[in-house]
């Protein structure tokens, strides 16, 4: 009986191992030591530099695999994620280090009305429904909100 139980557990473990492995990979970010959402909604260009500096410093401190960073841009701060923004090189570099860039769809739509066409966004940016809602959702999931 005992040996059968051991065999059953061993078999179960063997069958489940691929699933457990993929789950661990998928949940890699959720296992991070720190989860931070950075908000940029300010028109001041200096804030663009500042928010990118903060993201960079967090990666340096925690290590790329131990921190989960998402930068959410809405309102005037969405200019950071314009395709031709002067910081596009830094954005690409941070994206390759795992930083997620989220662009507010509401802001994009409203700016499009002013410009007469939707603003071209950085290819690294992911459009989310509403920037502020995205931040609230991330905070509920345990993210720390920082507004440099």
């Amino acid at each position: 009986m005992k040996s059968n139980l051991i065999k059953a557990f061993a078999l179960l473990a063997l069958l489940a191992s691929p699933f457990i492995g993929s789950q661990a990979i998928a949940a890699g970010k959720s296992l991070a030591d720190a989860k931070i959402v950075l908000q940029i909604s300010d028109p001041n260009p200096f804030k663009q530099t500042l928010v990118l500096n903060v993201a960079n410093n967090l990666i340096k401190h925690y290590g790329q695999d131990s921190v989960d960073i998402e930068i959410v841009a809405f309102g005037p701060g969405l200019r950071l994620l314009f395709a031709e923004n002067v910081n596009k090189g830094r954005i690409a570099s941070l994206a390759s280090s795992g930083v997620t860039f989220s662009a507010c769809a509401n802001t994009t739509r409203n700016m499009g009305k002013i410009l007469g066409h939707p603003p071209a966004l950085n290819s690294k940016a992911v459009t989310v429904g509403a920037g502020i809602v995205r931040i609230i959702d991330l905070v509920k999931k345990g993210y720390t909100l920082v507004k440099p």
Partner: protein
Amino acid sequence: MKNFKKVALAATITTMLGGFASTANAVNWLMLQGTEKDGAAPRAKVWGFLQPTYQKDTSDSTAAEPTRIGPNLEKQSQFQLQRARIGVRGIAMPLDSTINYFVLAEFGQNAITDGGIYGEKQAVKLTDASVTLNHIPGARIRMGLFKTPGPEEVFQGIFTFDYINFTDVSNQMMLERFTAGVNQTCGTVAAGNTDTPGCASGNGPIFANEASWDSFGAARDIGIQVFDSFKSGGWDHSYAVMIGNGNGLDTGGHADGEDTYLYWSSEMLIAGGKGPWAHGLKMFAWSHNGKRKVDLTDDDTVNAEVYDRNRAGVGARYRGGNWRIAGEYMTGEGMIFQGPEKPNMGIGALPQTQDLDGESDGYYLDVGYYIPNTKWELDARYDVYNRSTTHDLLTAEFNTITVGVQYHLNRKAKLTLNYATRDAKALDPISTASTPLTNMTTALHNGLKGIEDRISVQATIVF
């Protein structure tokens, strides 16, 4: 133009031969002054700089015409507010980076605002007011009043200048003075003497339609410029083509037709430094071509004649590690300004006039060293200006060695001390019955003999 083509060719060849991947930035004055950062420019950034200065000219004060400190030319030593400029720059609408603007005004005391004994005095003078349209890839368009693309020494943002005074070649040959008829007596010239053109009637040449000195070049013009910059393989290449009034800071009728300005630069980017102090090796060439209308007769009738005013130059600047090394060579044809040293800081009543079809050239070599782990920077510059080389009676040579030290209080403020050892001399023409010395020539000789060293101290604060 020859020099321009040579440098452009050299830059192209060097680009083809070399190059390395780099994220470094160029010290590109076309872009730094004419454009804003895409997606990251403010609607209106208020900025400016102040340069309170003290200068003492040690020239012989007992001479009949001692050199004096400008712009008022009343004392040989004085405190002055050499520059006080306040401006606004940015983008018209934050969502649209394609339209930029740049406005700057001079509140200080210099030739821009004060013509001294030769011109008018104004409390404030607009020096820049331009709009840049960035809609066409490779062909940005800038319109209005702004710096003309030219020699690095003059073209650079002046608050980054490592010295207090310009070299003689830049000051005398590049910064155009629209000399007026007042205070200009060339004296009598014997018939047939062509060495002092424009003085034959007894008075110096004046700009047509010029009642008094009412404009100053200030290395600026009102016009339109097409330009852009391209990064490729660790290099930054830029060009500019401009057409302007040829009348400096003001509109007016001194030029015949429009002036054309051509500019090319190629900079090998080197990691390190930021903004105007970014590291790199830049080579550049430029040319300015225009015509000026001049009245040669001393009467109330305008008898305008047209003379060329052509300028060209090549140069290079290296900045890397703790070193800065730079040099430029410039030539001028026509409308060679005849001021003894610093024309608006020159010799009292010596006439200001023009060598209408004369030629000049000059150059400078500049070295700077930032002492590691300190706030001190050491500077040394040697400059030469050969003025009116084709007219013996006007030919003069200016040699200046300037040593300086800068103390950087922080990134936005510094103190500068300069000591300039000056040697100026004219050819020593012999007066004969057929070619007698003119009053102008005599005054030129007497004035140049008196020029001695100059010490200058300046604080620069950028905000």
